[in-house]
């Protein structure tokens, strides 16, 4: 099968290779290109009475998006996304390392375990966290019964709860690419480092870590980007003072009924992400 594929894709049979790519291209066109095009067209439209979209085009929505009142929201979002990525990396790297080198026959079971939270909607997960973190929740009740606390701590609706939710949900996005790239590091290279007199720390620092860097970058990108658009976490676990970009956008579509402006904000977010990835690729090649 693999050999047939590589033969088909080798360029000798352009028609066949196009056919093979057709499902993927079709999928991309239907679910990415068309909706994104619709979004961009809407972003130039005008918002009419009661949120009717009026198809008169201009840049007014983009001009509004650069109002300085949205700057704190942008910085807050970057802060939360950055902190989540950093925490995921700090927690995820040792985890991926353990999975790769020490988990042995438990490896597959643990990998499945890592994915288990994904089997339910994050909504369910967040509501469970509310039960755990609440003033009359598991943690507070236990600590108060043990006499550690006299007054319950308000964990919910704080930056702590938001970060916890984000890290909890996005951790697998960091761990899986890390695991994939650590798994690809040839053991022989690490052994060679030992043979040449490197200690464990030096071997890790000079061999394993540099070889796993593609996984680190992929994991960070895969965590950081969806975090930028997250709005559910704040909606459920966060309070009104931690309004993020995702909330701002979802509010335009729901409460304010201003789809053109919401589209413009989304388009800007997309442009920022695509631009960032493009710069990163250029930097990587250079």
């Amino acid at each position, binding site marked *: 099968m693999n050999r047939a594929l590589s033969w088909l894709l080798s360029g000798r049979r352009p028609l066949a290779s196009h056919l093979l790519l057709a499902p993927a291209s079709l999928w991309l066109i239907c679910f990415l290109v068309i909706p994104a095009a619709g979004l961009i067209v809407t972003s130039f439209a005008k918002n009419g*009475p009661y949120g009717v979209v009026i198809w008169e085009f201009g840049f007014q929505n983009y001009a509004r998006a650069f109002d300085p009142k949205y700057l704190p929201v942008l910085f807050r979002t970057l802060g939360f996304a950055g902190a989540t990525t950093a925490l995921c990396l700090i927690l995820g790297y040792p985890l991926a390392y353990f999975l790769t080198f020490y988990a042995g026959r438990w490896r597959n079971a643990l990998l499945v375990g890592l994915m288990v939270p994904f089997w339910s909607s994050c909504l369910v997960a967040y509501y469970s966290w509310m039960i755990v973190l609440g003033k009359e929740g598991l943690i507070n009740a236990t600590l108060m019964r043990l006499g550690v606390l006299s007054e*319950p701590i308000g964990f919910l*609706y704080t930056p702590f709860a938001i970060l916890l939710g984000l890290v909890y949900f996005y951790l697998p996005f960091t761990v899986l690419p890390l695991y994939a790239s650590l798994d690809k590091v040839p053991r022989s290279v690490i052994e060679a480092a030992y043979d040449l007199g490197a200690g464990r720390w030096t071997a890790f620092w000079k061999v394993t870590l540099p070889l796993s860097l593609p996984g680190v970058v992929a994991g960070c990108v895969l965590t950081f980007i969806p975090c930028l658009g997250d709005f559910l976490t704040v909606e459920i676990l966060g309070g009104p003072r931690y309004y993020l970009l995702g909330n701002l956008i979802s509010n335009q579509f729901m409460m304010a009924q201003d789809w053109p402006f919401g589209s413009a904000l989304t388009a800007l977010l997309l442009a920022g992400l695509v631009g960032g990835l493009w710069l990163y690729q250029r930097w990587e090649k250079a």
Partner: protein
Amino acid sequence: MAEPISRRSFLKAAILAPLIPSLLAACKRADDQKVVNFFNWSNYIGKDTLPEFTKRTGVEVRYDLFADEDEMFTKLRAGARGYDLIVVGDYHIPRFRSLNLIEPIPAESLKNLGNLSPRFRRPGYDPEETTVPYLWGTTGIAYNKRKIKKAPTSWWDLWDPQYKDRVSMLDNVRDCISVAMQLLKIPQTTRDPEDFKKIRELLVKQKPLVKQYSSASYLNSLVAGEIDLAMTWSGDLFQTARENPDLDYVIPKEGTYMWVDCLAMMRGARHRADTLRLIDYLLEPSVAAGIANSVRYATPNQAAQPEVDLVLRKDPRVYPTPALMKQLQLHHVLDSEQSELWSQTWADVKVA
């Protein structure tokens, strides 16, 4: 032993498979006449209301729920088809009508319309009676008697710094801005940007005290002790108080708003006759009383009054005294330009 799948049988299956959904759809269409698709607030109907209707008429009610009216509006606006009957707040009716989402309910086909109290006939928000009042209630303050020693009396109590991080506000443009207007003595008819600036400042000033802007989950927070003071809709609190008897409801001394949730027929509803039957059924005195007893909102159905639980009927928090009734006002019907000013102001409060 299972027979291995031959190529031919696989091909046959592959050709037939796409037909299955259309076959299923065809079966569905056959019984379509006996169905009403009803889109309502969550916790907003009696437990037996709909099964009883189905038992009596053989018409199945497909019941769908929403917890946020903006979300519901967005869903319908984005083209969700298939609903026949929806529940809309009085002040939202212009918005639904101007987007052509609803069509008038022909009053002459309803036998039971006369059961409604005269106060709810030909109301200001819908003088031609194109919708049918379902339940009504007030917006007020919920508080936990055990945690808040001095019962709140005024909307200003929601601005009191001693309750920092224990307050929640409804995540609803109309309620929050109306209250700010009431406190600032600004009439709802205003279009003056200066007025809206003052409103925004007042709500932003309150923000550091607010733990949640929420229209549904704050009820859990009240029960769980996350918050102790909340802007609430009357019946929602009475339902919640069944779980936590420490919760009480106050209509602030400044007065408040009342709203009427109305049954409205979706434009192009496919099951018109059965939808009208359902509306007429919901207007029956015993049915309306059953709903009111279960959801603890006030019913606009006068004929239902004798069957409403005495406790509820005598409770001035549910059915305010005539003197208090005079202090209650309906939300002003906004035109699209005002509506824009309101939602812009609210959006700015959220961002601030």
